[in-house]
């Protein structure tokens, strides 16, 4: 909510997003994006993934720099713990996606955020990934996200922002709905 001297600024360029939405409604081919990552094995369960380029708006695009993610398994898995586990990276992906959404929705609704913190928990029975029980799935039994948000808004407005963020979140959709994954070997 704006005051006479202070404009709401969560750092999100809403005008650009709305402009993009209109433009892409008229030109849906430009909306086709392809996100990418490459992964190099280092040793054991330790690998390094890199994100550098993607395709969108009709042409190849590059990030400002190459981003890397180290992944490994922890010592309780008899491993060396050089990085977070892949499943933790997924939880971070969910939290980041939802958090970006919270900022965008708050900006669109003219609500000033002061702080936003998400705590994510993913419950898992590791007998699944160990192949010890066919009835146990590999992935999470369930994921819980708890948001602590300090903003210029009523608790209900904040709940509504968080609900809307889920509605438009890519990672939330990826996790809650089926996605085709095809793995080939060259």
């Amino acid at each position, binding site marked *: 909510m704006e005051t006479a001297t202070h404009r709401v600024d969560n750092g999100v360029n809403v005008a650009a997003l709305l402009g993009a939405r209109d433009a892409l409604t008229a030109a849906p081919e430009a909306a086709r994006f392809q996100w990418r990552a490459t992964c190099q094995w280092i040793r054991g369960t330790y690998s390094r993934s890199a994100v550098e380029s993607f395709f969108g708006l009709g042409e190849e695009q590059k990030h400002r720099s190459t981003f890397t993610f180290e992944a490994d398994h922890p010592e309780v898995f008899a491993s060396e713990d050089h990085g977070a586990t892949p499943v933790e990276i997924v939880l971070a992906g969910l939290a980041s996606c939802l958090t970006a959404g919270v900022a965008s929705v708050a900006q669109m609704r003219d609500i000033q955020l002061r702080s936003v913190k998400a705590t994510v928990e993913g419950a898992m029975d590791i007998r699944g990934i160990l192949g010890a029980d066919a009835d146990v799935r590999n992935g999470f039994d369930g994921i819980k996200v708890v948001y602590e948000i300090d903003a210029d808004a009523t608790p*209900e407005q904040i709940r*509504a922002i968080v*609900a*809307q963020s889920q509605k438009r979140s890519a990672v939330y959709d990826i996790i*809650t*709905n089926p996605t085709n994954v095809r793995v080939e070997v060259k």
Partner: protein
Amino acid sequence: MSRCLAERSIDHVVLERGEVANSWKTERWDSLRLLTPNWQSRLPGFTYQGNDPDGFRNMAETVAFIKQYARAISAPVQTRTAVTSVKQVDSGYEITTDQRTWYAPTVVLASGACNVPVVPAVSKLVPPGIAMLTAMQYRNPHQLADGGVMVVGASATGTQIAEEIQRSGRPVTLSVGEHVRVPRVYRGRDIAWWMDACGVFDERYEEVDNLDRVRNLPSFQLAGSDDRRTVDLNSLTEIGVKLVGRLAGVSEGKAQFSGSLANLCALADLKMIRLLDRIDAWVSERGMDDVGAPPHRFEPTHVDASPPLVFDLARGRIRTIVWATGFCPDYSWLHVPVLDRKGRIRHDGGVSAAPGLYLLGLPFLRRRKSSLIDGAGDDARDLSAHLAAYLASGAAHSRAASLAHS
């Protein structure tokens, strides 16, 4: 529209593929009642005269009401006349039917938005042995085999059908996607009364932020009944209906449900709260705070901590699937280049992109109430004025000022 055109002395004919009120008579289930109270079906020059204004008409009463109106206004209806093609010609439009061909400078499409049931593509992957029917084919629970039923879709149709089927002794699993929750009664008044009084139903299309979104909103989870009960996900859970998320896929005979059920229910609860806040504010502004009960809120939608994500359809627990997944209009006969890339007619408040071609009865066509019986009147008044001006302007070919037929 016919009544409005007659008032303007505009020659017209109403083409109906069946009998008057055909869809109400032939494409609805037995126990269906309007979800708006009787007093709220106000047509131009014709209001409810019966002794149950707060009741809800059943289908026979709805058909009778519309037939009475047609007679009262002497509407020039050609029944059993199916339109097979509409296309543009020099004089305006050529309307081909299974009876004869008509030529007219203007055409009003009032065939509604519910001609064809929408069934998701995953229906093709449902294993054999499970009966499937759409909401348009559903008539009553006795059509269905004994045993479990999965109802897909939790808007007005889905929730009403789920309630009826569960009460018939067939356990219902309800797959819930996006939905709109409202109570039937709030602070002593019907929710339809509130939405009318507060101006919610009169909201205009030009004032809406995202028109596409509101035109695609699911129908209210609302039902008409003598006891004015609220039919929502909590009331369904109470009688034993099991909720699962949106049907996201069918793979190897297993139905997959989205893990987003909790959020969809939260979104619906929040939207309902916003509506009730608006009602309370309206009441306060008018100093009516002592009318009816004080402001209150309803129980949030109860969702299990871990709703099932998968159902093995081959196990036999589900014998029937009812698709309550919406409807869409049939424009297969419309050979006028007014369709957008998604097959919807391009229009501005019912004035289509083709000169002389008008639409009626679509969701939020001009107002939030446009798809209600009560909304037809105001929209018809607006559009008949536009149509009359169009005819008078001479933009329509002058030699087609009256109807001609081959």
